[in-house]
């Protein structure tokens, strides 16, 4: 059994997607890379984030994130900035049970504390299922 002391030894590597006033997190193990999107790039396998969740207004440039999953990989295009962080595991929180029961976006998995804020951690595999459904 892992106690609180053991949790303090563990860390959680995350990729943060800053989109204006909203920041979402993904486990970094699913993120292969990210770069500024060029309009000349092939759009095969690219899913616009706007088809997966409402996009807040942001002046940030468009990014192309490469995600790898056990079933393959796909590309997520979004406006925003990307940041890699490694947080203590103690800053990871389960979604409160009533929210877990009522969530309308299956990809919402957990919450993480970051710089005094609570961010939503998305489930990359669930997000991939959603991407497959809309593409």
């Amino acid at each position: 059994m892992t106690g609180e002391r053991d949790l303090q030894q563990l860390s959680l590597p995350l990729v943060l997607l800053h989109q204006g006033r909203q920041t979402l997190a993904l486990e970094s193990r699913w993120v292969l890379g990210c770069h500024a999107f060029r309009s000349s790039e092939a759009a095969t396998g690219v899913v616009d984030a706007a088809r997966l969740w409402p996009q807040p207004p942001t002046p940030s440039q468009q990014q192309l994130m490469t995600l790898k999953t056990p079933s393959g990989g796909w590309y997520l295009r979004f406006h925003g900035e990307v940041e890699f962080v490694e947080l203590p595991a103690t800053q990871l929180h389960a979604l409160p049970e009533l929210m877990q029961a009522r969530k309308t976006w299956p990809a919402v998995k957990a919450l993480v504390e970051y710089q005094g804020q609570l961010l939503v951690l998305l489930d990359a595999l669930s997000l991939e299922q959603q991407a497959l459904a809309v593409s």
Partner: protein
Amino acid sequence: MSQTSVDELLALKREAANEVVDVDEPTVKLVIFALGGKCFAFRGQFIKEVLPGDERLFYVPGMPPSVQGVINVRGDIESVILLHSLLDLPTPQEVVSGSILLGQASGMHSGIRVDELLDVVDLPLSQLQNPPESLPESLQPYVAALVDFSGKAVAVLDIEKVFADYQDGLG
């Protein structure tokens, strides 16, 4: 001075004694609040804490409108929900920013945003009345009792039923 028979005096003493016993009548703690222009209450035993309402609230996407967000209460993350839809109360035009009641019942817990905390009182249990049949249908499943508070009818809500139905997708 008027004369009173011994029997009458003894009866008066018995009444006085009964009144003393009444002080020990079981009481119930109620957390009374305003919501959607009506007065409601939860039993105090189910409310862990009342927060003033200015806590930093974090929006969580992908939730129904009745979820306001989450708050960090000394390291514990609590959801904050609105009960307007569940209780069929008018949807607030502005963001509700009154007190947050931290409720806990049947293994479930959540913050419940109310318009205004009115009072926390201890009342004799005998003051709780059964809810009338004329109660609006939308409130009937949730109102466990009625009580008079400063001339206003207060509906005492069954928080376990509220949480259970909310979890099942109502509201």
